[in-house]
């Protein structure tokens, strides 16, 4: 590869690893110094394996791992200075919180270690727990201890394996901004594995979508959210309407026909295409505000608080999210006639 390699960046080149029948295939990825990178994917996609490969815990079948200008492919984990936090935190059960946190510190620099410990304990609010055993802590507390244990080593990069997955919704909500804060504070390149798209959207500078041992798409959260590159990525990020249609050209403009509707699109593709539309980008009205709307029939309504998931027959079946408050007197019920509009930017052609 040519060009400058920024110090403190992480680069994977053609990383390949076979474990039993599972193959992590030819993964190439560059993460900028200080970036918060999210590895997103369903369980079994190989996210944790990739994280462990970055940590140096699995020898590679092929490919290279670089940290800045240093090739670390064959460097053992103890020499990489990459910190890891596992989903259920993997705290050492035979040690108390304090012993867990200082586990990796060398005995020599005792004073400095003490200072470092105090700083992290304050930062993470662990003052009351130092002499407790991990078994007696709540999920959120364990999480902080695991973070402190990794951070006290001043890691060159931080690997987080589903750090919020095992927490209850409230704790999770409280810890998300805390992760962001820690990242801003330390500026450490972070790779965060999750299967939760909202988490990815909230925390990630960039997102890499993994599936079946492959890295399918890398981009900003908005990019991945709005422009998934394949039906499977679209399905995973919640773009539920995955359809087939035909692009026709009329007077130099391209139109996509779906059911009775036709929407102007900008694309260099033509003929039969596959595309996705996010449900919340379809606008649904009780009466027709203009001529560009197509008529449909409501098949089912699933209320979800202020928003309802509505299944509409437009010649093709579409899922739309409708804010029911805006409907006033009109009823949104199966059998009702509705009018939909689909903005051209909502159409994502694969």
């Amino acid at each position: 590869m040519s060009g400058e390699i920024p110090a403190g960046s992480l680069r994977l080149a053609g990383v390949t690893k076979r474990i039993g029948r599972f193959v992590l295939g030819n993964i190439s990825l560059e993460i900028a110094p200080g970036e918060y990178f999210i590895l997103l994917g369903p369980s079994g996609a190989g996210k944790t394996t990739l994280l462990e490969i970055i940590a140096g815990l699995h020898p590679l079948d092929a490919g290279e791992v670089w940290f800045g200008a240093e090739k670390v492919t064959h460097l053992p984990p103890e020499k990489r200075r990459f910190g890891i936090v596992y989903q259920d935190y993997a705290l050492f059960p035979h040690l108390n919180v304090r012993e867990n946190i200082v586990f990796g510190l060398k005995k020599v620099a005792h004073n400095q270690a003490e200072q470092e410990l105090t700083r992290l304990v304050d930062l993470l609010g662990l003052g009351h727990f130092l002499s407790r055993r991990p078994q007696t802590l709540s999920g959120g507390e364990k999480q902080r201890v695991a973070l402190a244990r990794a951070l006290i080593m001043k890691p060159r990069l931080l690997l987080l394996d589903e750090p919020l997955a095992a927490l209850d919704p409230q704790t999770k909500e409280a810890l998300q901004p805390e992760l962001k804060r820690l990242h801003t504070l330390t500026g450490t390149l972070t790779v965060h594995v999750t299967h939760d798209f909202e988490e990815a959207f909230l925390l990630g500078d960039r997102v890499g979508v993994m599936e079946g041992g492959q890295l399918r798409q890398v981009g900003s959260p908005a990019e991945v959210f709005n422009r998934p590159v394949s039906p499977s990525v679209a399905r995973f990020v919640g773009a539920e309407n995955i359809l087939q249609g035909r692009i026709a050209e009329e007077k130099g403009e391209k139109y996509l026909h779906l059911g009775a509707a036709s929407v102007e699109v900008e694309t260099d593709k033509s003929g039969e295409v596959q595309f996705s539309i996010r449900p919340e980008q379809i606008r649904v009205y009780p009466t027709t505000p203009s001529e560009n709307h197509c008529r449909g029939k409501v098949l089912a309504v699933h209320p979800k608080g202020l928003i309802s998931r509505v299944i509409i027959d437009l010649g093709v079946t579409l899922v739309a999210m409708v804010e029911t408050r805006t409907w006033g007197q009109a009823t949104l019920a199966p059998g009702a006639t509705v009018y939909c509009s689909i903005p051209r930017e909502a159409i994502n052609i694969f």
Partner: protein
Amino acid sequence: MGGRFFRLGNALITYALALFIVATVGAVLVRGVPGIPAALKSPELLFALRLSLFTSLVSTVLAFFVALPAAYSLARGNLPGGKIVADLLRIPLNLPPIASGVALLLFFGTTRWGRALANLGLEFVFTVPGIILAQFFVNVPALITVLKGALETTDQRLENVARTLGCTPAQAFLRVTLPLIRNSVLAGLILTWGKALGEFGAVLMLAGATRFKTETLPVSLYLSLATGDLEALLATASLLILIALFSLAMFERARIKLDERGTIL
């Protein structure tokens, strides 16, 4: 109604078996224990006791240092051909000890390897090192099984984290995994030691039964039987039973501690 008879039947059989064991073992103790102080003045029994303690301790320590790495590589599941190796390692566990003894005797007494070792001064046939080897051979598979079981309950990821915190694989094992399985290690060692102390068949075949030379407690018991010395026989048997009871009690203690930790986790 059927359920009640079923439970009652099971309970009766359980109690009957327990009673039977207490009666038989007790019969030996009742007649043998009073003779122990006198027997302990006999130089022959003292020799056997000392030899038994020495050989069983040495063979247990050896077994530990071989079983631990073996159990680790089997438990972590990254050993090529691990399943077959695990089966091979279990062979002595299911072999009658006396057959193990024959195998050892043949190997060290008649093969080129055995003779080569003997020429290097490692003589096992009819010697004290032979006693240790026989105890080791018979006991090491059980110890591997105990340690492997304990290691399988520990989380590989704890070692992974330790590695990222600067530990070599060996340091990660010693600082994290070993402390976590220490009760199982203790239980396994007590079990191994108790069995080594009582090992007879394999020891007899390889090391023979020479008075004041390869005479361990079980061998001494056998010799007393052969010469019809009933008093010495009962005293020796009682001694062996008491040691066994002691090691069983220690084993249970270690296991209970392990369970307590298990419930906290």
